[in-house]
């Protein structure tokens, strides 16, 4: 059964490629010198962006630890959600807000790095906080007792200890920046093209689906190869944090807060105009509840489907090759994924919503696996071994060992996927038939001068996103509490 489910996982995660090749009647291997340059640039910007995110994220993580120790309420309700905010707001909003707050904005290469870092710093900080708390707390206290300074500890062994974990987080950011689309185009200027832009160009301007498919495959393979050969350290992580006085820093708090502040300040201040526009649009007012409901369906659906995928993956994860494949696989190109699903199934509202659910889940899950889920299921490896030695079947091992203990993590991450689903319009706008969801309405409002109303609805979207996230992680939390008590 595990073999069959393993195959199912492979089929599901590679379905966008399979569908697009099937439709594109093959691949075009026509690669120019320029395309190679684009690849090189994409790699470079992704590498530097992830490096910058790691460095600043590390300092921010020390801030998170500091505030978790000193101001737990502020940490739980303000700082932690703030860290997640830049990753869930539609990219275009991050761009508009940043250009408003950071004035003059350093366009070009620096601009790309700056925005990628702003977007990913928070989520990186949260991950590093966990790693540092789990792995460096004891070591750092010991070296403090020996009289080593914080810098001495970090540079003479501390960082080395968690190098593998940092590489995993770095790869998560790398994969996001590698397939970045809007940021390089808006703030980079025309010479800074990424592969994702190149794919989009092939489809939109040339209608050359065969080449677009090939570029998407190359994009996927290149990151796959990279991940495959970089030793990825996944290890057991404990959920509980030790209070660590030594590895914490006040300076990290503002750094962790800056990205969210930029977005909030940048998007603030057009409420009255937005309300005015809202009151003028009777039909929108009538439609909006339905669109909120559709968005809710997509968000919950994405959460559930992601949850299913996480569990399927947890079931098959322990096969050597499959584990490597899952860990090396990055989310498919949004454009390719969108068009691949467009040709799949009938048209209509329900179908559009199903496509969104499938597409957003397939894009979100690989990133979230790398971010956390791989660690969670890897931490159960020893227990799985013991259970197998005791004679338990695969199904039994999953049902009684893996599933209950990965439930919280799967719920939490499905909650993030559902949050992303509220804000998605990159994929939705390709697969949707109409403005079914709030995000698509926001996009249509932006293309018809009504930016302020779009921003107003974005706030609505954020609140709804937080609620569904809370629902998923709440279920996980309650179950987890019951499980361990």
């Amino acid at each position, binding site marked *: 059964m595990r073999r069959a489910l393993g195959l199912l996982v492979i089929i599901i995660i590679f379905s966008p490629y399979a569908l697009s090749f099937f439709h594109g009647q093959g691949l075009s291997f026509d690669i120019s010198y*320029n395309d190679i340059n684009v690849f090189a640039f994409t790699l470079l910007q992704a590498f530097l962006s992830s490096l910058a995110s790691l460095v600043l994220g590390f300092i921010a993580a020390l801030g998170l630890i500091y505030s978790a120790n000193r101001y737990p309420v502020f940490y739980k309700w303000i700082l932690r959600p703030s860290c997640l905010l830049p990753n869930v707001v539609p990219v275009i909003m991050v761009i*508009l807000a940043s250009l408003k707050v950071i004035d003059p904005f350093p366009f070009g290469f620096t601009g790309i790095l700056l925005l990628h870092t702003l977007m990913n710093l928070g989520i990186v900080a949260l991950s590093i906080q966990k790693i540092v708390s789990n792995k460096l707390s004891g070591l750092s206290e010991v070296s403090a007792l020996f009289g080593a300074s914080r810098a001495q500890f970090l540079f003479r062994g501390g960082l080395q200890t968690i190098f593998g974990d940092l590489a995993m987080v770095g790869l998560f950011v790398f994969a996001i920046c590698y397939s970045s689309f809007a940021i390089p185009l*808006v703030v980079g200027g025309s010479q800074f093209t990424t592969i994702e832009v190149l794919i989009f160009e092939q489809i939109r301007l040339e*209608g050359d689906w065969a080449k677009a498919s090939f570029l998407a495959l190359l994009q996927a393979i290149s990151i796959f190869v990279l991940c495959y050969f970089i030793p990825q350290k996944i290890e057991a992580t404990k959920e509980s944090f030790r209070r660590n006085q030594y590895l914490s820093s006040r300076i990290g708090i503002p750094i962790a807060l800056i990205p969210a502040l930029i977005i909030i300040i940048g998007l603030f201040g057009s409420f009255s105009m937005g309300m005015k526009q809202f009151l003028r649009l009777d039909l929108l007012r009538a439609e909006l509840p339905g669109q909120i409901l559709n968005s809710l369906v997509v968000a919950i659906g994405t959460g559930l489907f992601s949850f299913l995928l996480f569990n399927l993956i947890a079931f098959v994860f322990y096969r050597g090759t499959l584990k490597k494949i899952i860990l090396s696989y990055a989310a498919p190109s949004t454009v390719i994924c969108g068009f691949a699903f467009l040709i799949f199934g009938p048209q209509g509202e329900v179908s559009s919503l199903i496509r969104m659910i499938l597409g957003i889940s397939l894009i979100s899950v690989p990133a979230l696996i790398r971010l956390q889920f791989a660690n969670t299921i890897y931490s159960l490896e020893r227990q799985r071994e013991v259970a197998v030695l005791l004679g338990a079947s695969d199904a039994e091992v999953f049902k009684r060992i893996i599933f209950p203990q990965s439930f919280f993590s799967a719920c939490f991450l499905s909650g993030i996927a559902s949050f992303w689903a509220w804000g998605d319009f990159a994929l939705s706008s390709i697969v949707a038939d109409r403005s079914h969801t709030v995000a*698509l309405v926001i996009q249509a409002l932006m293309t018809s001068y009504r930016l302020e109303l779009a921003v107003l609805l974005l706030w609505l979207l954020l609140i709804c996103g937080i609620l569904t996230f809370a629902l998923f992680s709440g279920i996980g939390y309650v179950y987890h509490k019951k499980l361990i008590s």
Partner: protein
Amino acid sequence: MVMEKQKTSTFAILFALLPISLGLLIYWTSESGSENSNADLTIISYGSFVSSWGPGPAVGKIFEKEYGVKLQWINAGDAGLIIERLRFQNANQSVDVVLGLDQLTIDGAREVLEWRNFSYPEILWHKRLPKDALQRDFVPFDWGPLAFVYKKGQLDPPKSLEELLSKKYQGTISLQDPRTSTPGLQFLYWILSEKGIDAGFSFLGNLSESIHSISTSWSTSYGLFKRGQAKLTFSYLTSPIYHMIEEESGDYRAAIFEDGHPYQVEYVGIPEKCKNCDLAEAFVNFLLRPEIQKIIMAKNYMLPVVDQIEQGTEFANIPKVRLIPFSAQSLTRDRRSLLERWKKLGL
């Protein structure tokens, strides 16, 4: 024991989810035809046209009432993606009417699909609509000159392309990338047809000092302008009317260029493979009726293609500008190399 039961039931739910979702998927993919297959006419267009505040629903409602039929609107999202949507539209779903292509994209549409020729009824076309806007297989339904838009008091409006190179416009212009945006492509073609290819590119190179940013879409570049980051943006001559009507603000103005303006014509077409072709043709004719043209004008903020429609409205006050006709065909043929050169400019 209770805990055990709870675990088992959660587990059961999970594994019930798997066959249920697979079953749904299989049912869904095997389902032939559209969920709205009871619609008499399927129309595909771009997002803001079919949104509730756009012209689509308003116009469609009247048509449905008058003809006693049901319309199905498909939102292709971005106007530039309509052709790709057509290419990818499920084989078992035929589209009867395609609405929203422009003079730069109809050639591409002709490569993807065959289109029905159209016999124009007796129409008094808008006097200023250039004659070359009429095609045998695509019917214009609205149009508008393109122009740089600015906010009164923020800068002296430029009066020509050359003036944009001036120091006083340094870092002020928000443009769109021609690779991802139709107005962006219009801008590039405008410069190249006005100045010639080589001189055009060298002009663009010189323009880099004046450029604030180049966005992926019109909405982003207009957003940057509206939020005050850029002082000038490439948009439509009709853009200020939106602000006047919807925001009661007379601050937004279009800069009038003495040497003329490019223009965009939006078309409606009927694919040869249409399902209900007569009704599709009736719909296209319907779009050209004066009262319908008025709705499209008012909701899309574009000029009507039929004469006299804008009389008595804000649209009548639009400055009369010289229009620059350009042959999109010759440029679209070389599009790939032109965009390569654009990229190399590194703006």
